[in-house]
């Protein structure tokens, strides 16, 4: 898995210089040519394999069961959400994340019940990409990763680290690890079925719409929902210092 990641990243870096962006270059997206190619690859994979699988999964399993599955994976992630909160100096949030993990893993039966939320300990959203951003790293160019979708140079590094430390890849035997990965992937895609059909409706150019939404969303997440006000953008020169 690690090897795959390293080769994907170097592939991305290798293509970077050759990927021409066409005539409507956006300073935040200098690799648009390459990105659009990966985007259409992902899109093909999604419509032929991922969406049909996720739809089947959604139709076969009751919402209660699917939500237990989501809770299980979400609980494991709370460990490193806590680590990232602490790395960003948000100690109280970090302790809350670990308290969530403690309660949900025990009373919540290995995380399948989110009892912590019922107790009023709210779930957070953190990852290494956000931590790097909080530490002052700019987003770098927009980047579409094979299978994983929207990212930036900074967030791709963050995702690589997220995966490197995540408990799931360490699971043995391999067959169990792969089944868990499969379940995680299908369940996550199923959660996004509604959202992706709304995106399809709203956008004139899905690539652009999704890119801008991703960049806005990440900026908001880095500042935990209240990013500093940007000066009013002028159309032709979108702010290249977007975090």
């Amino acid at each position, binding site marked *: 898995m690690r090897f795959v990641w390293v080769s994907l990243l170097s592939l991305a870096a290798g293509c970077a210089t050759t990927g021409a962006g066409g005539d409507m270059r956006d300073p935040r997206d200098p690799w648009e040519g390459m990105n659009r190619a990966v985007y259409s690859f992902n899109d093909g994979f999604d419509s032929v394999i991922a969406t049909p699988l996720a739809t089947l999964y959604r139709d076969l399993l009751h919402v209660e069961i699917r939500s237990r599955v989501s809770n299980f994976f*979400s609980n494991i992630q709370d460990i490193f959400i806590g680590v990232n909160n602490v790395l960003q100096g948000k100690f109280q949030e970090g302790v809350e994340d670990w308290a969530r993990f403690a309660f949900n893993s025990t009373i919540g039966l290995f995380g399948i019940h989110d009892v912590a939320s019922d107790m009023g300990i709210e779930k957070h959203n953190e990852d290494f990409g956000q931590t790097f951003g909080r530490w002052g790293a700019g987003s770098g160019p927009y980047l579409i990763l094979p299978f994983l979708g929207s990212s930036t140079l900074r967030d791709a590094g963050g995702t690589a680290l997220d995966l490197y430390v995540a408990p799931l890849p360490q699971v043995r035997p391999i067959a169990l690890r792969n089944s868990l990965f499969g379940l995680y992937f299908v369940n996550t895609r199923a959660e996004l079925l509604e959202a992706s059909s*709304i995106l399809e409706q709203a956008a*004139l150019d899905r690539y*652009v719409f999704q890119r*801008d*939404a991703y960049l*806005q969303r990440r900026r*908001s997440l880095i500042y935990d929902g209240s990013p500093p006000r940007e000066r009013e953008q*002028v159309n032709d020169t*979108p702010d290249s210092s977007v975090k």
Partner: protein
Amino acid sequence: MNMRKILCLLGAFLLVPSTFFLVSAHAQQAMPPDILVKNVTTEVVELIAKDKEIRSGNRAKLIEVIDAKVLPHFNFASMTALAMGQNWKSATPEQRKHLIDAFRTLLVRTYASALAAYSEQKFDFRPLRAKPTDTDVTVQVRVLQAGAQPVPIDYSMEKTAAGWKVYDVVVGGVSLVVNYRTEFANVVRNSGIDGLIRDLQAKNRTLEQKK
């Protein structure tokens, strides 16, 4: 002493209805923005919950509800102008009218899908943090979902003569107006403002056919 009490009571009785009328007249004009958002959201969600046709997927009827209950509180001219950015200045009044119409139709359809997908969630209406003199405020609502981080929805609202109007919706940190800005700018650069109007209208027609 007794007489005084009676007079006081009488005064109170006379006063109460008149203040009541004052308040309701005032409410018509400028209901506080956070109360407005809460009332409209609650009303629409209840309407959907009660309506079997809408719940079984009658999109046209849902759009009717949105048209009647939600649209009056949006300022689509502002939204379109903000999404157009600099290009708004070069649009003729005729083009502006078409742009506002087409953009409104697209947004209403998107809004209807979002509402159909998420209307069963719980909403948490945040208290408004603004001064009474403010004319531009953000009303915050959070959609609570089991086992996940709540999704914040921020309504940017401006005070107008006809009450508070929404001019942008920010979902999970993503501003709708900002998100359309690059898209619109790209289309205008390639095929002009009329091209954008054509694209929007074509998009709406496709959505109409898909029902």
